[in-house]
C-alpha cells in the first residue's frame, strides 16, 4: 500500500479545516450539510486513491465543489459561472491558479487534480460529485480550452 492513511486519520486531520472553510464559503447554516456531503464524497473515492499525497488539497477541492454544486442548485447556472467571487480562494488550486484562472469551475478542478495533484479520474470524479467519465471529459475540455486560449494570446 502506498501510504494512504486510514480514513479515520485523514478525517480527524482535516475535519476542522474543512468545516471552517465551508462556514466561510457557504455560511454557518449550510456548512453542516456540506460537511457531510464533502466527507461522504471523499469516503466514496478514498478506496480508489493511488497515493496519499495532497490529501488536504484534495478534500478542500471536494469541499469547494460541494459548495459550487449547492449554489448551483439554488441559483441559475449562468450566474454562478459569471460570479468571480466563487472562483476565488479555491485553496486547492492556488498553485495552478494563474494558468487555469479562466476555466469553468469543474474543468478547472479536473485539470488541477489531474495534472497538479496526479489523481486518477476515479478519484477526481468523486471529488467533483460525478463519475470517472465526467471527470475525464472535464479535464480534457479544460486542457482544450487552455490550448485555445494560449493560441489566441
Amino acid at each position, binding site marked *: 500500500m502506498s501510504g*494512504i492513511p486510514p480514513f*479515520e486519520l485523514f478525517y480527524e486531520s482535516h475535519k*476542522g479545516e474543512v468545516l471552517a472553510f465551508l462556514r466561510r464559503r457557504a455560511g454557518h447554516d449550510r456548512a453542516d450539510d456540506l460537511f457531510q456531503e464533502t466527507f461522504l464524497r471523499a*469516503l466514496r473515492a478514498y*478506496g480508489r486513491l493511488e497515493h496519499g499525497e495532497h490529501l488536504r488539497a484534495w478534500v478542500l477541492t471536494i469541499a469547494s465543489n460541494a459548495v459550487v454544486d449547492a449554489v448551483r442548485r439554488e441559483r441559475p447556472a449562468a450566474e454562478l459561472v459569471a460570479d468571480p467571487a466563487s472562483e476565488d480562494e479555491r485553496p486547492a488550486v492556488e498553485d495552478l491558479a494563474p494558468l487555469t484562472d479562466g476555466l469553468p469551475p469543474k474543468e478547472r478542478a479536473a485539470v488541477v487534480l489531474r495534472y497538479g495533484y496526479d489523481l486518477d479520474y476515479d478519484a477526481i470524479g468523486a471529488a467533483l460529485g460525478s463519475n470517472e467519465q465526467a471527470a475525464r471529459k472535464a479535464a480534457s475540455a479544460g486542457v482544450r480550452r487552455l490550448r485555445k486560449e494560449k493560441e489566441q494570446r
Partner: protein
Amino acid sequence: MTPNATAQFPTGLDDHFRAVAAASGELDVAYDVLDDTPVGPLLVGVSEHGLCRVHFDPEPEAELDVLARLFGPRVLRAPKALDRVRRELDEYFVGRRHAFDLELDLRATPEFHRRVLEELNRVEYGHTTTYGTLAAQVGAPRAARAVGTVMNRNPLPIVLPCHRVVGANGSLTGYGGGLERKRFLLALEGRVEPAVVAQPALDGLTGF
C-alpha cells in the same frame, strides 16, 4: 493537523458524519473502542461481512494501520455500526449470553487458521478443550504447537473462544490477552475459581 480545530469541533456534527458513514455502506471497517468492559478497553471492528476484529489494549494508531492493511483504507470509528456487537458483549460479560449470534469475517485469516478457528467455535460456553484435541480435530494431530499459534493470533478473541483452550495437563498455558484475562473469562463461565491459578483443581480437566 489544524491546531485547536479538534477541540472546538461540534460533537453533534462529528457524530452525525460517523453515523452517516456507517450507514453508507462505504466503509471497509467501522470500529469503536469499548472503554468499560471487565477485561479493559476492547477495540471491535466490523466489515460488511461481519465482525473482523476484537483487540485487547488497543493502541489505536497501530491498530488502524493493521485494519487498513488487511481490509482497505476506509477505516472509521463509527460506534453506531457496533451497536449489536456491543450489546452481545455486554450480555456476555454479565453472564446472560452463552453464544454469540454475529456474522464473522475471517477473510484476512489464512486457511489453516480458519479451519482451527471454526473448530474452536464449537467449544461451548463453560467447557474447555486442549491444543492437542483441536489439532486432531482439524486432521493435524501433531500440530498442537501450530494450534497454539493460531490461538495467539486469533483475530476475534472472546467471540472465538480461545480462552477455552488449555494445556493437556489442564494448565491455562497462555493467552494473547494475558493469563489474567483468560482466568477471568473462564471464571465468568464458571470454569475456574476467580483469581486462582489452581493447577491441582484443574488436573481432572485433561482432555475434553
